[in-house]
């Protein structure tokens, strides 16, 4: 699954623009990955100018 380090994110929306399945929602300083829609294509991870998106095995990996 894909996770966002929100405290590093600039909320620029570049990931939203390349997401092929509209699975990223961005509102002011809040960004959400809609995991039920996400197809783990990783395009958002590649495009992020500052590497705040990551692929992890499961959410616990981040902690």
């Amino acid at each position, binding site marked *: 699954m894909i996770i966002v380090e929100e405290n590093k994110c*600039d909320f*620029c*929306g*570049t990931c*939203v*623009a*390349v*997401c*092929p399945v*509209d699975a990223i929602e*961005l*509102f*002011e300083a809040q960004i959400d990955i809609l995991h039920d829609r996400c197809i783990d294509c990783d*395009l958002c991870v*590649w*495009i*992020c*100018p*500052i*590497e705040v998106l990551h692929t992890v095995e499961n959410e616990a990996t981040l902690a």
Partner: protein
Amino acid sequence: MKDEYDVIVVGGGPAGSMAAKFAAEGGASVLMLEKDRDIGMPVRCGEAVGADGLARFLEPNDKWIASKINSFRLVSPSGLIVDIEGLSDGGYVLDRRIFDYELALMAGNAGASIMTKAYVYDLIKDGDSIKGVKLKYLNEKVEFRSKIIIAADGVESRVGRWAGIKTTIKIKDMESAIQISVGNVDCKSNRLDFYLGSEVAPGGYLWVFPKGENYANIGLGVAGNHNKSKSARKYLDDFMEKNYPEASILTTVVGGVPCAHTLPKIAADNIMIAGDAAHMVNPVSGGGIVSGMQGGRLAGTRAAEAVRAGDYSYKFLTKYEKDWHKLLGKSYERMYKIKSAVSKLTDDDLNRTAEIISSLPQSKRTLGRVFKTALLKHPKLLFDVVRAFASV
């Protein structure tokens, strides 16, 4: 405040403001919605623009011109410097915070209502038919109905998607970009500097755009397919460490630049898309300020005509698509081919071209002369590239 308008514009950037202005001037009731607290902030932009393009919309004003440009510097991968001076039609580095305010004021003075901190999260639909927008405003959910929506909601556009128009950008056509505004740097206040090469910015370029004495926007874009192995931030960090280790960083912004074709479909029943959201960006230079303003103007103008005719169908609005194609879309198709060709040039190609140009005496190094000389090496190609930049 009313709850129904003829035209709702989503997004308060240059495209949105011009759409709102021209729709209002055409007699429509208009509401423009901006998601951020402030029009023009944050500034996700290099801020360079051609003087000619802007002059069609407003008189130049020192309050939003940070510096006036009449020369370029190209730095080849090997470090060879090529200066091109005396550009006939120069340009500006803007202060977008003030500039975007100015554009929004033009919309307001034409009669458009404006709301900031208004985040559109969905469309109101009756079956498949678009009837307005749903938004969050000061923590409240609000709805506004309209006959036409103009989606000028930027590179991260979602309004178009909700209307069933595919706005996703292919990763190879997206430039992953980062920019810092820095002080204590040696830059010339009348010159734009471009650094090229696979070590600096593969599939893109690095810019040093002066905003005053020792004050500049330094940024770069890396083609999306290159960003995977090394991010834009790392490229910029490396460049700064090597070239400007003493710089003081006032702000950092990041973002994506859609260097793609204009979307094939930018209108549907009750909706038009404009600006970055429609990929109205010069694919070679990544410049999109004037493009977005032009797109917004065309969309706003057509929206007002639709209101007067009482016809909001795609059949009526498609003239907007044709107008855009004729004005800029067609030439951007050609630019896209050039971009594809340029992306195949090796560092050696770029170095050899720079050598040829720099063999000319400075006094003869006008843009025209550079074109002619570059022709020897890359017929047509470089000519178009430099022209693309000259008309950002």
